[in-house]
């Protein structure tokens, strides 16, 4: 937005400029006297100035909100990049190439040593679980990540942000409150930003599912951000706004990018894996099989066809693949073939 924004009244712009000038310290007793006099003789201006003060103060209420945290992080990253470019450009042509290489190598080594010595170093890295395995990571900031079976995450902490990339699988995140360092979970092209909260994220087959247990998060569509406001389309569109999720809500993003938020989510089903159970409530069979396959060497193959969209419901023990297959055989028109010792094939009857 700028001064040409039709929503901004000229009086508000005028008041905001004066407010900022006072805020930034270039403000004398004479300036204050002038401001007081103007407010006394011009009530609409006095109101506009009060609105500017109120707007500024109101930001305190949102300083730790997920969306503001995301913008803060983006602003810091932008400033760092701009600063780095400025230094790079400032020295262009001054250093000899080999001097520059040596200097960069020195900086790289220094950064490496600093990173190793930093209190956050040991939490960074890649963690994964195998078939049927669950694992809890206690992070340095007192956040906790519980990985479901067949899950892989990459943890990266820095001074400004805590970033977890969910490469595949499912995990629950208990995020320690730290307003100065947002906690980001990246799953595909979605970015879930939290401050202090508990939620689960599943990322499999390019589908993302976020279930909120406590607190709030903002979910950003990184693909929309990348496309920007002038993406090739029939009409220019604004970048997608973050979707805020509160406790009890769930969001599912399909492989084609459609996001659906369920206000009263079935959190019992979303977190059942923590208790070694799998709960299906009208779940497509192909998705259910993908989940069941996470917990056992005995793998189910579903023959291509319409069977995958058949809906199933039920509660199963994680790892009891045979029990799951028996139930499917009873309720759906399928034929079960044991093709190998560790493979079962389901096909439509």
């Amino acid at each position: 937005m700028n001064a040409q924004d039709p929503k901004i009244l000229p009086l508000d712009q005028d008041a905001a400029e004066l407010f900022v000038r006072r805020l930034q310290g270039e403000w004398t007793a004479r300036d204050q006297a002038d401001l007081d006099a103007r407010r006394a003789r011009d009530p609409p201006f006095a109101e506009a100035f009060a609105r500017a003060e109120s707007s500024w103060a109101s930001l305190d209420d949102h300083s730790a909100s997920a969306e503001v945290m995301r913008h803060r992080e983006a602003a810091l990253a932008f400033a760092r990049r701009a600063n780095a470019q400025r230094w790079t450009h400032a020295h262009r042509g001054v250093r000899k190439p080999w001097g520059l290489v040596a200097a960069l190598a020195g900086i790289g080594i220094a950064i490496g040593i600093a990173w190793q010595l930093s209190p956050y170093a040991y939490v960074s890295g890649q963690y994964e679980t195998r078939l049927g395995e669950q694992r809890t990571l206690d992070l340095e900031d007192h956040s906790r990540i519980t990985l479901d079976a067949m899950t892989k995450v990459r943890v990266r902490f820095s001074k400004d942000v805590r970033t977890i990339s969910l490469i595949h699988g499912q995990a629950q995140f208990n995020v320690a409150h730290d307003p100065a360092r947002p906690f980001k979970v990246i799953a595909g092209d979605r970015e879930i930003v939290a401050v202090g909260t508990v939620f689960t994220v599943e990322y499999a087959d390019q589908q993302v599912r976020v279930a909120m247990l406590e607190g709030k998060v903002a979910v950003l569509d990184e693909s929309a951000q990348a496309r920007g406001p002038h993406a090739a389309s029939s009409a220019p569109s604004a970048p997608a706004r973050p979707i805020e999720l509160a406790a009890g809500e769930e969001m599912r993003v399909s492989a084609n990018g459609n996001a659906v938020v369920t206000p009263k989510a079935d959190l019992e089903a979303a977190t059942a894996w923590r208790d070694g159970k799998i709960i299906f409530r009208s779940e497509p069979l192909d998705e259910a099989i993908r989940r069941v396959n996470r917990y056992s060497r005995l793998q189910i193959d579903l023959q291509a066809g319409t069977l995958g969209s058949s809906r199933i419901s039920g509660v199963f023990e994680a790892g009891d693949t045979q029990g799951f297959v028996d139930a499917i055989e009873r309720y759906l028109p399928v034929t079960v073939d044991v093709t190998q010792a560790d493979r079962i094939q389901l096909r439509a009857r």
Partner: protein
Amino acid sequence: MLIRFEHMKAATVAEMLGISVSAVNKHLASAVAALTADRDGGDRQ
């Protein structure tokens, strides 16, 4: 963001971004005015 939440001075931001201090203040004033317009939007309709 940098001034309001990270408590940076306008001069610091100006130096980082390679723009003048008055340009930083102009951007900041526009942001405050836009926020005011946004907050008052509902009242004016």
